[in-house]
């Protein structure tokens, strides 16, 4: 999947990570946003039976958007781990924040609602996956 040019305009730094490196750690503090430029990453969540893989993301995927969009709770909701060698772009958070703040309260609350829903359903899916 080609990276959309609108994303390149927001990349402030690029990083290359080796296979099996934890890019984002669940429950750690942080609201940086990344875009996967090359390679694949696995999204995993803690469950009572260990880590459950809930998604695999590839080129073009934005990662770390949940704490950024929720604002009030800036804890990471899942692990993101490189599958092979992965090239990441770090996005300009300050610019994104300024643009996000310009949205109306109604639109922001709609986006926030959807992000909360994603957080809840991801947790539910990981618990179900661990049970099977």
């Amino acid at each position, binding site marked *: 999947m080609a990276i*959309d040019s*609108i*994303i390149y*305009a*927001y990349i402030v730094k690029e990083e290359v990570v080796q296979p099996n490196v934890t890019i984002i750690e669940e429950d750690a503090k942080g609201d940086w*946003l990344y875009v996967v430029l090359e390679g694949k990453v696995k999204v995993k969540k803690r469950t009572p039976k260990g880590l459950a893989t*809930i*998604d695999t993301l590839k080129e073009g*995927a*934005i990662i770390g*958007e949940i704490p950024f*969009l929720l604002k009030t709770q800036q804890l990471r909701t899942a692990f993101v781990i490189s599958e092979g060698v992965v090239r990441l772009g770090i*996005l300009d958070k300050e610019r*994104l924040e300024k*643009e*996000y703040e*310009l*949205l*109306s*309260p*109604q*639109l922001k*609350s*709609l*986006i926030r*609602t*959807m*992000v909360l*829903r*994603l957080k*809840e*359903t*991801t947790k*539910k*899916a990981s618990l*179900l*996956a661990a*049970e*099977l």
Partner: protein
Amino acid sequence: MTEKKTIPPVVHLSYSKGDLIIKEGDYGISIYKIFKGHVRIFKKSNNTIIPLATLVRGEVFGEMTFFNFLLEPRSASVEAIDDVELEVWHPARLTEEYKAMPAILRYITQQTLNRLLRMNRVIDELTARKRQSKEERITAEKKSNKRRYFRKNFGQECNYRSATHSSHVDLHGVIKDISPMGLGVEVIERNAMNFNHNLGNQLKISFQLPSGSSINEVAIIKSVKKSKVPGCLFLGLEFSNISKDALKQIGFFMMS
């Protein structure tokens, strides 16, 4: 340009406990904000209700259809848990704002929507698999009629007789293994003259544990096999309503 004006509420609606506010599969355009009360979001899959969330005052629902550009039907149902008052937003002006917002924010929002739709599908699939595997496990357990617990080897003699028919004849057997759930007992085939060793038959069994405790319990025949010893049968028995004391004594023996 991005519109920043506050969108006035178009309508206020009230619902009573149990009222369906949104029905999964219907087409609708409105977005709702809860002013009072609680609502429950749920999906139906193969006649099973899958609860997704409970929302309270200040929370919003109906957002999925909005971000899907009204192309998809409602992805879940919403029901009033108690008396609910809602503010209903018409999506028209929000749609204009959404289309005009910075492309990267739209990209992130669209990606969040796609992940949410995928997670909802994953939950549907996993719930169906969980139900299927539970049904398969119950069927398999019924079919196999096996006792599935850790059993301790034992070599204790026992007496048994029918639990359902009056009989004065105590039959003899040897307990080969024991667990808090049941026993494996070797009996002579010709005991069948006084008691039918059929699956499901209940018997009263009595024996002593090495501690000296006497156990007198009712058990049901779950399996019948030919024993390695010629002329003998091996019965798999499961206790029915074992007493607390017997359970405790067997437990101590299992740990010894």
